[in-house]
């Protein structure tokens, strides 16, 4: 079975632009979580979605939004990009909200 897949793997944007990151969970997993990992730090929780509903939100501004589709894939959107948004964005899936997390390899976003 395929693991968690994220696209694109790398992305370069300029300040003020908008970006959409995509995540496909492991088959059968209904929960998707998003994390931001700034260089040299541990990942920080952004969102969790389960059955297309938001189940948790971290301490991120409203410029960050996400959604989950009927096939359980997910998109993370970031508007009005800032230099500080440059980071590795990790997606993780699980069978349900309290189950073991399986992570993808992330999308490296660079904001210039």
């Amino acid at each position, binding site marked *: 079975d395929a693991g968690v897949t994220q696209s694109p793997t790398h992305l370069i944007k300029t300040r003020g632009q908008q970006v959409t990151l995509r995540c496909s969970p492991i088959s059968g997993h209904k929960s998707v979580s998003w994390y931001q990992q700034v260089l*040299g730090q*541990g990942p920080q*929780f952004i969102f969790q979605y389960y059955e297309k509903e938001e189940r948790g939100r971290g301490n991120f501004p409203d410029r960050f939004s996400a959604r989950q589709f009927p096939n359980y894939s997910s998109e993370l959107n970031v508007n009005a990009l800032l230099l500080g948004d440059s980071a*590795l964005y990790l997606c993780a899936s699980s069978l349900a909200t309290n189950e073991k997390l399986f992570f993808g390899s*992330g999308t490296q976003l660079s904001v210039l």
Partner: protein
Amino acid sequence: AQTVTQSQPEMSVQEAETVTLSCTYDTSESDYYLFWYKQPPSRQMILVIRQEAYKQQNATENRFSVNFQKAAKSFSLKISDSQLGDAAMYFCAYRRFYNQGGKLIFGQGTELSVKP
């Protein structure tokens, strides 16, 4: 609010030797989970070991074991018979038992290098 602290930014170990990575955390809750994750250069976070706070017995997974000291809020990872493939960033993480939205709280990480 819960916090996780890893005070060792870098550690080094000789191949086949044993190394211990430290982690402390702060919480007012009595039930929770603690994890160690490994992040190799591929960037994928891989679960190494999990500990339930209500269990007194320390978790073990092959060469990996933990020393869980609940009263001291300490959760160290011991890697025995270190291998070159163990070289990676290691993150300690906390999750509430009654989870609200799948949130893991990570420490800052410890970069482990393994010398041949």
